[in-house]
């Protein structure tokens, strides 16, 4: 990290008298919120300023080609240094932004070594002066309290051109985890939870011999866990010789679990345990940051710049409308970097069915980051098993009484990606213009939940939080086998799973869920906005994904005419 301190170090002067407004820093939810007046002027504001990626159009094209079988760039993933050299911000970008902040009274200014972002802090008056805005407290109609800017920030043009946005100017989007505790289940574990052996049998994972050996799997977390829980789980379910998770602490996080009913400790714990249940030999990397705007973004940037893990899972998110467009655009650039580096990112789709914002249960909403186009959104099902725990069927997970269910719906932000073209229909209530989620799904119903060992005791949990790490660990198994045959990692999986999921292999590799609704969107034959392409038949999907030849993608633009000759 490079730091900027005293004014005497400043060599660059900003003499512009014009200014550029930075758009879209106010979350949509602010519009209906009541302005409660100025925040405490003594409040310290921590900002994270992501610097602008260069050649973004070329980056999108590169990612597309990296994931087309047969293309000269197929599987030619970048290293972080290659990414920085071609697309990354420059040291001059970082220096200019740091010096502007220093001139305006910010302190503790730190630039990321790869120039991805600049961190700084200041009290409210300095922030307001530097960015030409005021910070006020707000209350949403549902009672949510948060602070945010009265108007869009403004900076000199020579700064505006170097940055993607400014993180830390509002507190509307505190991220929630998607784990739900249950009291009963259908498995053979304590309280009926599904043990590793149970759900490995049900989904055919028991037929996959890969163990994740040699692979690293990253878990995005905003809380801590107790290693003793992980050890107890491994002992209880006979997961032999697992590697201890490696903790990577970000933005000053201590690693100690928070206390209380809102603690994310169960989330972190079950993520680790379920990943190890699928890939017992994988090295789990637990990235942990404080649950703040800056902590959230900094952690994603760390996972990208480290590029240690090719399979990444998050079970933390927030409804799209609680994020500003600038927040979402910044995240998108990070996920594009990860895609270009061949990192697969899976995100829980949320546990509130089609209504992801818990404060607005009558408004259709989807969860970020699952709705990001370079992320794979994992929805929720209710699993039924036969005697012996073999697979029977699945329906959409939903519970109207508790207003819970697998997340899914239509993004209000992201346009439809090419791999979803034609999948939105009148039957599934989908879109022809916008990104749809989830992409895939897995058992998430707390009533058919998973055995875990949390906070010193056996327990049962459900939620799409369980589905995301299982899919991620499965991807680590696929990567292990592909590397063994000198194939590139599967990488950003959406183009691939939609290619496979619409091919003649689909009926054998996916369990197409066709019954139920996620409180709004119905399950239908083929793709739907309740369960995506469906859950996996692990062995057959594994075989399809380790094959050097993937099924072809459908041709388009069929035209024709009758002729006589």
């Amino acid at each position, binding site marked *: 990290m490079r730091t900027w301190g005293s004014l005497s170090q400043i060599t660059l002067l900003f003499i512009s008298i014009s200014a550029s407004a930075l758009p879209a820093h106010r979350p949509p939810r602010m519009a209906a919120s009541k302005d409660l007046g100025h925040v405490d002027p003594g409040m310290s504001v921590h900002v994270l300023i992501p610097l602008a990626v260069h050649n973004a159009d070329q980056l999108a094209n590169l990612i597309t080609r990296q994931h*087309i*079988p*047969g*293309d000269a760039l197929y599987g030619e993933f970048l290293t972080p240094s290659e990414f920085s050299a071609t697309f990354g911000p420059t040291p001059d970008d970082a220096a200019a932004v740091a010096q502007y902040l220093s001139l305006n009274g910010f302190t503790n200014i730190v630039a990321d070594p790869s120039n991805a972002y600049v961190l700084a802090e200041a009290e409210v008056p300095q922030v307001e002066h530097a960015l030409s805005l005021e910070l006020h407290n707000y209350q949403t109609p549902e009672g949510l309290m948060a602070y945010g800017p009265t108007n869009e920030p403004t900076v000199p043009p020579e700064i505006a051109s170097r940055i993607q946005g400014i993180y830390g100017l509002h507190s509307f989007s505190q991220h929630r985890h998607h784990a739900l505790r249950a009291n009963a289940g259908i498995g053979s574990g304590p309280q009926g939870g599904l043990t590793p052996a149970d759900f490995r049998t049900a989904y055919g994972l028991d037929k996959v011999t890969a163990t994740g050996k040699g692979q690293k799997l990253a878990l995005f977390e905003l809380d801590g866990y107790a290693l003793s829980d992980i050890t107890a789980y491994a002992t209880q379910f006979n997961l032999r010789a697992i590697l201890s998770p490696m903790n990577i602490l970000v933005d000053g996080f201590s690693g100690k679990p928070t206390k209380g009913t809102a603690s994310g400790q169960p989330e972190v714990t079950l993520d680790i345990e379920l990943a190890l249940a699928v890939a017992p030999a994988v090295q789990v990397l637990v990235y942990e940051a404080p649950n703040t705007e800056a902590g959230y973004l900094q952690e994603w940037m760390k996972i990208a710049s480290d590029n240690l893990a090719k399979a990444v899972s998050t079970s933390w998110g927030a409804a799209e409308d609680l994020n500003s467009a600038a927040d979402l655009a910044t995240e998108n650039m990070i996920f594009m970097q990860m895609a270009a580096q061949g990192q697969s990112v899976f995100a829980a789709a949320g546990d509130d069915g089609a209504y992801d914002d818990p404060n607005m249960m009558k408004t259709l909403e989807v969860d970020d980051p699952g709705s990001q186009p370079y992320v794979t959104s994992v929805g929720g099902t209710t699993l039924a098993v036969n005697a012996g725990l073999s697979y029977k069927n699945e329906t959409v997970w939903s519970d109207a009484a508790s207003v819970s269910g697998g997340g899914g719906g239509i993004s209000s932000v992201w346009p439809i990606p090419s791999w979803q073209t*034609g999948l939105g229909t009148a039957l599934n209530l989908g879109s022809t213009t916008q990104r749809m989620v989830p992409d895939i799904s897995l058992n998430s119903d707390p009533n058919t939940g998973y055995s875990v060992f949390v906070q010193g005791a056996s327990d049962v949990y459900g939620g799409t939080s369980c589905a995301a790490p299982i899919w991620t660990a499965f991807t680590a198994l696929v990567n292990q086998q592909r590397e063994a045959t000198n194939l590139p990692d599967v990488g950003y999986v959406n183009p691939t799973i939609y*290619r496979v999921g*619409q*091919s*003649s*292999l689909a009926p054998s590799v996916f369990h197409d869920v066709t019954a139920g609704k996620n409180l709004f969107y119905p399950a239908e034959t083929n793709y739907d906005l309740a369960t995506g392409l469906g859950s996996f038949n692990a062995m057959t999907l594994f075989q*399809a994904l380790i*094959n050097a*030849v*993937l*099924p*072809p*993608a*459908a*041709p*388009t*633009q*069929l*035209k*024709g*005419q*009758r*002729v*006589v*000759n």
Partner: protein
Amino acid sequence: MAFFRLSFIVLLCGASVACSKSNTTLTAPAPTTSNTGGNSGGTTATPAPTTPTPKISLTWKPADAGQDGFDVEGSSDGTTFTLLQKVADPAATGATIADPSPSQKYYIRVRAYNSAGLSAFTAVLQLEP
């Protein structure tokens, strides 16, 4: 022979078939002759009128280079499709096929294939009579 070919084209253009540039690609039918006695004298026979062949000319855009070829399927009711032609060219962007029922609506769809499987179909193309 060149003279004969030209004559044929002129005759065809004079018939009910619309005359177009594509006619130049037609190959002439074998000359018919009433001479069955082994006379190899140089009389030029007039070809019998031919029945125009109804066809369907198709174009499509391959998604990428991941296929070995394409299947063209047709249907007279838009529901039950049968394979009309395999196009074993991974770079093909179209095909011309016989029109099975020129006087009726007809439906066409295309998909790609390779050793791993079959792609989804294109959107169905509807052809009017």
